[in-house]
C-alpha cells in the first residue's frame, strides 16, 4: 500500500473516500471514528415528521396538565 499524494487527497469525491484517505494517514481508528460520528447524526427529519413529533408531545402535555390541575387542588 502506498500513501496517497496530496493531489489525490484534494480530489476525493465522497465522504467515504475522504474517511478512508484520512484513515490511511491517521490510522484505522480514524475511519471508525468518522463512520461512528456520521451514524450518530441520525436520520434527518422532514419538517412534517418534526411537526408530527411535536403534535404528539403537545397532546401528551395537555393530558398531563389536566392531571396536574386536578391534583393541585385549591
Amino acid at each position: 500500500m502506498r500513501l496517497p499524494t496530496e493531489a489525490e487527497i484534494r480530489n476525493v469525491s465522497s465522504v467515504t473516500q475522504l474517511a478512508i484517505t484520512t484513515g490511511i494517514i491517521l490510522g484505522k481508528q480514524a475511519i471508525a471514528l468518522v463512520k461512528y460520528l456520521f451514524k450518530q447524526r441520525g436520520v434527518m427529519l422532514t419538517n412534517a415528521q418534526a411537526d408530527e413529533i411535536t403534535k404528539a408531545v403537545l397532546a401528551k402535555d395537555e393530558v398531563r396538565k389536566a392531571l396536574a390541575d386536578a391534583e393541585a387542588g385549591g
Partner: protein
Amino acid sequence: MKRLRIYAAIVLAVLLVAACGSLPAKQRAVLGNQAAGQAIWALQDAERRICNPAVFDKDPTIPITECTGPTASAAGLTTAKHQEFAKTLSTAYGLRIRLDNLLLQWQPGAPEPSELKGLQDQANGILTIARSLAMTERQKELVALAELLMAEVQKIAATIRGAR
C-alpha cells in the same frame, strides 16, 4: 509526510464539527423538546408514585389528591407538598403547551420564545421542591429527573438562541 498528517488531522477535525452540528436547528429543538417532555412526564409519575403508590399502581391516570403510606412519610412528601408540586407542574405544562405550539411554527432566526425563560424558572422551582424532600432513594430519583429536565430545557434554549 508531516504535511499530509497535518492535513489529514484538519480534515478529521472538520468532519467532527460537521457531524456534531449538522442537524438542522428546528430538528434539534424538536427532539430536545421531546426529551424534556419525557423528563417531566417521568418526574410527574415518580412524585405521584411516592405520594400514593396504591392509587398509582391501580390506575396511574386517576388524580392523586392525598399522600399516604410509608414511602410518602419517609420522603417527607405531605399532601400539601404534593399539591404545591402539582401546581408547579401545571404552570410548567402551560408553558410547555405554548412552546409546543410555537415550535410548530418556529423557524431558525425567529425571536426566542419568552416561554423558554418561564419554563427554565419552573424547572428550577421543581428542582427546589425535589431537593427539599427528605434524603431517601426516592428523593434522589426525583432530583435526578428534575436535573435532567433542567438540562433538556437549557439545551432547547441554547439550540434556539444559537439558530438566531
